[in-house]
């Protein structure tokens, strides 16, 4: 399993907001990718409405997941591929380790994969003395730095070129230079050797196609093609929801995925892989393994309230528009999945109480829904999670986050539904507020549990005479 640090969300957020380097990096990402993706949707021949069609395609796939997965794996087995179904992270990593040890694997190369982050694959392999090389440039940078990814598709976006230059000088022994082409070339050179020497290559799976029996991988760098072509063994890790029925479904989905992820018409490389090389082919892996992972997904599938989140194709478009992500960055979320998608899916994976701050920290502004290439209603699910925290929920084993909060809201509900109580409350409030610290006619600090409201702003005091009284007393 990946490390879970969702409990330190608030402290992490405070730190992130003070980090000026990070703040610049985050604005850079959001200013460039957010509007570019919106424009790319507008420029689609079908317009942004195409997202609704994509939603239907994904929904259909999820509703037929059992049959689609069986169709997919039958075809892959027919071509000589091996398939393993893993109920949890441990089963997935165990299987991987067994295959690696059976083949005396000493060194592996990896294409970028969020699922392998989720199951903590690298740690397991390294603990068994297998050298792991991340090959996506961003992943490579953070692997050298010993950090988790901070963005789903641009994992090292929190690092400046200066930091990367310092890191490469130290780790690769190259002269110090801040030029991105120079730094990229250094990584290209270092990783080329790894690609050619690796005994095994790993990839994730963007969207499998059940009808034809292929997994697909998407990249711009070509590292995934390298990892899946050069080593003798290719192993794919796929979240069980990442399949669609028909080949032509990929038309809509790849066009939207490329736009959502990086405002491109089409990602640089897309590969459909359906098994090991055949005996008459000159290259490609001798062995092909597909590991399909549940790890909490079937529980989400069983709940109609959250099933929709399984439509996600992990493009990170929601990160690029989210005001919360734009301030606190990816590491704050304390789990590989960050941003609005992380705020919904992480609590469902690791426990809603444990990750409660994630769904409570998002502003419900709706930007993520608009940016989503498959039109997932993340705000609805954020609210549903909050409702569970407010009232408790036995199905998800949620205990009420705060009794005090519930009590306050019950009282508030009583008061505003009764005119007499409400008037009394207003009058009492108007009297008591004199004792609160103030400045320029504003209240600068609220008492007790309400302090948070005035931490970064002042609040307008209650009027001496309320509007209703003024209206009544108004002379015609």
């Amino acid at each position, binding site marked *: 399993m990946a490390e879970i640090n969702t409990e330190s969300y608030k402290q992490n957020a405070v730190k992130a907001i003070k980090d000026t380097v990070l703040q610049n990096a985050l604005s850079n990402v959001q200013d460039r990718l957010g509007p570019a993706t919106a424009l790319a949707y507008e420029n689609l021949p079908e317009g942004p409405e195409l997202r609704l069609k994509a939603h239907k395609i994904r929904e259909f796939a999820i509703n037929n997941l059992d049959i689609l997965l069986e169709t997919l794996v039958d075809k892959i087995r027919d071509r000589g591929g091996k398939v393993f179904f893993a109920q949890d992270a441990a089963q997935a990593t165990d299987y991987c380790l067994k295959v690696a040890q059976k083949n005396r694997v000493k060194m592996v190369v990896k294409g970028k994969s969020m699922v392998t982050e989720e199951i903590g694959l690298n740690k397991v392999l390294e603990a068994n003395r297998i050298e792991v090389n991340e090959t996506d440039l961003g992943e490579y940078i953070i692997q050298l730095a010993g950090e988790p990814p901070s963005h789903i598709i641009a994992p090292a976006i929190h690092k400046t070129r200066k930091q990367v230059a310092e890191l490469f000088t130290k780790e690769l022994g190259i002269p110090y230079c801040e030029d991105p082409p120079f730094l990229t070339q250094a990584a290209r050179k270092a990783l080329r050797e790894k690609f050619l020497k690796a005994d095994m290559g790993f990839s994730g799976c963007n969207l499998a196609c059940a009808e034809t029996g292929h997994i697909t991988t998407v990249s711009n760098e070509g590292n995934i093609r390298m990892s899946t072509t050069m080593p003798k063994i290719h192993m794919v890790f796929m979240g069980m929801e990442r399949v669609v029925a028909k080949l032509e479904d990929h038309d809509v989905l790849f066009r939207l995925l490329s736009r959502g992820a990086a405002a491109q018409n089409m990602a640089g*490389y897309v590969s459909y892989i359906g098994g090991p090389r055949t005996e008459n082919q*000159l290259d490609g892996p001798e062995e092909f393994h597909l590991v399909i992972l549940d790890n909490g997904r079937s529980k989400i599938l069983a709940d109609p309230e959250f099933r929709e989140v399984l439509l996600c194709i992990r493009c990170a478009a929601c990160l690029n528009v989210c005001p919360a992500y734009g301030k606190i960055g990816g590491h704050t979320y304390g789990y590989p999945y960050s941003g609005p998608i992380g705020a919904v899916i992480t609590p469902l994976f690791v426990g809603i109480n444990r990750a409660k701050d994630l769904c409570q920290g998002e502003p419900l502004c709706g930007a993520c829904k608009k940016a989503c290439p498959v039109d997932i209603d993340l705000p609805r699910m954020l609210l549903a999670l909050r409702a569970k925290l407010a009232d408790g929920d036995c199905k998800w084993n949620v205990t009420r986050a705060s009794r005090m909060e519930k009590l306050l809201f019950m009282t508030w509900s009583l008061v505003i539904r009764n005119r007499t109580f409400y008037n009394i409350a207003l009058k009492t409030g108007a009297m008591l507020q004199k004792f609160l610290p103030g400045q320029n006619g504003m209240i600068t600090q609220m008492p007790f549990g309400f302090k948070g409201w005035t931490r970064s702003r002042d609040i307008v005091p209650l009027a001496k005479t309320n509007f209703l009284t003024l209206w009544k007393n108004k002379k015609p």
Partner: protein
Amino acid sequence: MDNHQHDFIKTIQQALGKSSSSAKVAQSELFGTRPKDFENQLDVYINKSKPDRDTLLDLLIEQAELIHMDVIPVENISLASHAIQELVQNTEPEWGSKKSIIAWQHPLIDQLNLKETLSGNDVEVFSTQTSTKPDSEEREKIRTQLLQSYIGITSADFCVAESATLVQRTRPNQPRAVSLVPSIHVAVIRMDQIIESLKELYFRLKWDPQEKKTGLTNCMTFISGPSKTADIELVMVYGAHGPRQLLLYVITG
């Protein structure tokens, strides 16, 4: 090894509220049925008029420019061959000092006659032709030649104009790494291999009897532009792990 499939799928069925007996859904419902007018549609796709093909070529050139990919229309195959000779003269290998290039064994690529036109001049030309059942020795030889080569020459099955995407399916004698490992990737296609859209591609792959025979193969690759990354401060850099440059020659005659 038990692969847990039975329990895994059963869990999904329970989550979806299905009993396993109700799980049978018609294949047609899942994967679609052949459109009634498919023959007409296919005809429209395959027999495009000359002006339509010219428009597609223009669209391809325009889209390719956006992604740093050079599309060069040439009248005939010998002009393509000349252009490649010039390219070899004007470029230097990235890793070694010897100029080696590797080319697919492919009807169109064979016509370039690269061995005859380029050999000598300190240029080595490798071809990927091997026996029908290559053994590990042959594979190793090709791999070594591939790693020595700084230019890889391939063709493609299709080129999608709307996104400047080359579509390659794996075949014997056409290793996928030729379009990946060398620093420069050169592709040569005929004008009639340019298609309009992904929609057209999938339609043809799915319904054209000729294409269905080949299928997607065990590895179908889409290539749109040279390898690139923007992982350092979102600055676009070409040549991350794959080719730094991608040139596409389109035979128009």
